[in-house]
């Protein structure tokens, strides 16, 4: 699940891609999409006035048509309405899982990077152990122990991304720690804590903001996978992953049921990635 490491690599490299201050087509599109997604999450009623849970068995399985732009599902619920209203769950799952992963990662990574060799060694072995677990198993065990649902799925995804973040943070911290400006601060007579708080942490954590936007997309994809395994959001929550996996059953007879939630998952992940990388570029080339 440490797709984040990949992202870290990307984040580190995109430094090189040059300071294009102009808004690219991709960025502009991603911006518009992001606005739409945020609006869907905050004021879904505005974009889709219907009730996402309202069933209408008699108009089940309708392909996209004038009344139902994205078609209807097996219970006759309007898929467009559900997708729009589901944004909040998916975004919250994505954001919260990332926050949890990142939070844990910061604690572990900082411990490993900052406090002596013994703790570094211990935390490192611990991370290695977590890496040796398949990420999904970590999530699986957690959910089986604490029961399925949006909250546990979120925590599970967060937990399984934490080692990835921790590794990145540790590496970043070690890099920052050895940089000349840290020595310069020592020469100016600053204390360890002052240096940690004013220089090391801000410089370590700043790139993580970007990582986090990238991680959100991945978290949503993982949460969807948990839904597929029947361990995600509880019905009839209009969570995308749950909709996607419900629609998958009817893939041969009602493609639209899985296509639109799937499309939104991919779009969200892509939007987050594009925006994250663009923000990163801008931040680096201030």
């Amino acid at each position, binding site marked *: 699940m440490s797709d984040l490491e990949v992202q870290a690599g990307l984040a580190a490299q995109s430094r090189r891609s040059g300071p294009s201050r102009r808004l690219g087509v991709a960025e502009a599109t991603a911006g518009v999409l992001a606005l739409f997604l945020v609006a869907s999450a905050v004021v879904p009623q505005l974009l889709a006035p219907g009730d996402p*849970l*309202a*069933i209408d*068995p*008699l108009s*089940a*399985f309708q392909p996209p048509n004038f009344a139902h732009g994205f078609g209807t599902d*097996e*219970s*006759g619920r309007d898929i467009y309405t559900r997708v729009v209203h589901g944004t909040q769950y998916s975004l919250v799952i994505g954001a919260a899982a990332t926050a949890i992963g990142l939070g844990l990662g910061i604690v572990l990574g900082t411990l490993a990077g900052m406090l002596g060799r013994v703790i570094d060694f211990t935390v490192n072995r611990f991370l290695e152990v977590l890496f040796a677990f398949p990420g999904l198993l970590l999530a699986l065990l957690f959910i*089986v122990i604490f*029961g*399925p649902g949006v909250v546990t799925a979120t925590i599970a995804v967060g937990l399984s991304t934490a080692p990835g973040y921790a590794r990145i943070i540790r590496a970043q911290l070690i890099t920052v720690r050895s940089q000349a400006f840290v020595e310069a601060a020592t020469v100016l007579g600053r204390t360890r804590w002052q240096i940690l708080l004013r220089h090391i942490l801000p410089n370590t954590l700043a790139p993580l903001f970007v990582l986090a936007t990238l991680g959100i997309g991945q978290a949503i994809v993982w949460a969807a996978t948990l839904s597929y395994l*029947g*361990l995600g959001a*509880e*019905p*009839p929550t209009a969570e995308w992953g749950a909709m996607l996996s*419900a629609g*998958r*059953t*009817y*893939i*041969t*007879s*009602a493609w639209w049921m899985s296509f639109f939630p799937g499309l939104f998952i991919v779009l969200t992940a892509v939007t987050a990635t594009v925006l994250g990388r663009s923000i990163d570029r801008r931040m680096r080339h201030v």
Partner: protein
Amino acid sequence: TAAGSTESVGEPKSGGTITYASGDAEPSCLDPHVGGNFPQALVSAQYLESLVSRNSSGQIIPWLAESWVPSADGLTWEFTLRDDVTFTDGTVFDASAVQANIAHLQDPTTLSSTGYLALGKVTGTEAVSPTVVRFTLSEPDSALLESLSQPWLAIESPAALERSQDENCAAPVGTGPFIVESWVKQNAITLVRNDDYVSPPADAGHSGPAYLDTVIWRFIPDSASRYAALQSGEVDVIDNAQPDTIVQAEQSDSLEELDSPRPGSSNRIELNSGQAPFDDVRVREAFIRSANVDDAVSSLFQGTATRSYSALSSVEPTAVSNAALFAYDPTAAGTLLDEAGWNETDADGYRIKDGVRLTVEFPVSTNQSIPAEQSVFEQIQATAKATGFEVKLRPMDLSSWYAALASNDYDAVSAPYTKVGPDVLRILYHSDSIVPAPSGYFANLAQVSDPAIDELLTTAASTADATERAALYSDAQDRILEGFYILPLYDQQNHFLLRSDVIGLRTLPTVAVPTLYDVWLNR
């Protein structure tokens, strides 16, 4: 197109390999004595046979036993066995073989659960002669024949049973039309024809060995892949077909459908009458009246399932159906809730009483309920909400689901139970079944505790006379239905889809498992 249109396909041809894809879990043991669940029944029906079978009108018919006579007091039964049958390992089928099987089932180390329970009243067996075996019972058991017809009580080679359980689980030896050749875990079981086969049940389509050379028995848990595999011809028969694929198959020339509801109970939602809020019959009725099941079934099953108003499967001749009790009537439901004291409504539109919300905890086993059924629950959730019920659907894996049941952590639940004959009612609704087994398992999930029902079911279980027995079960069902303990949905769905060139597939009318004995390939 629907199956059964087997006219004019010509003479059966021998030979060929068929691939059967099961959506059920892969058994951990191929011997259905051990444990005893449906997946085992499905596959073991191809290589094991029972003493008796049942025909499509519900009558018990001979199989390995040619005839049987109960004593007048119903405490002993003598079965006359066929004398021309040998097990595929060469062992002779005789009275001692039957004895060995009953002993195996009753041996605690076998870890039998279904078979063990079915033989609850059997205290001993005796070989009267090589072809006559006598069963001794502690009390009359009107369900004995039905029990013995089930695949979980099939007869295996006594020599094979002597082997270790591991060996026996991997390749049980019976008298059936096929022989277990190999089993690659998580992939397939390979069965080959028993060339010496002589003992089809009385209602079989032909005699002598099976037509097919080989049967590949695969496990494809994902329903979409299973159907895709059938469509692409990768497999020939699939079970647990989804409603939408059945509808598609009906339009296809290359696919056929076989619908064979399982016996025993219907699929129903059981309301936990043992605790609030469903300890109040008015609330139970209100819930049932507030659930729009008809629309749900017709939209989700698209005509592949018929609404049930009975506690029993429609294949059970003794089933009682009462549609009037389950009509969708939200107004009546509202009135009933008012009467029961749930007359206030909170901000979310749910009924409350003494500050407590009218909440129905509904754990759903993701392993046991197909997606369409889970959607039925969602629609019930949505329609019941209009009346003021907050139904909390909780999907969980099988172990967690049983754990929730064991800790009485449910108000509604749906748990099918397959058993041949109406005796299933005793298992499901006798108050004895509320007492959990040491494992926490109990069958009376509605927690029906009605002395009158207990009395009716106990009497029926030991009543030999068919008419009398049917009347007793009918009375019991009336009481169960009128007590609004359950919300029947439909029969336990058991749809098979097959390629059109697969001819002669039928299910055994016992527990509706398919038999490949009569099947031949028109290729």
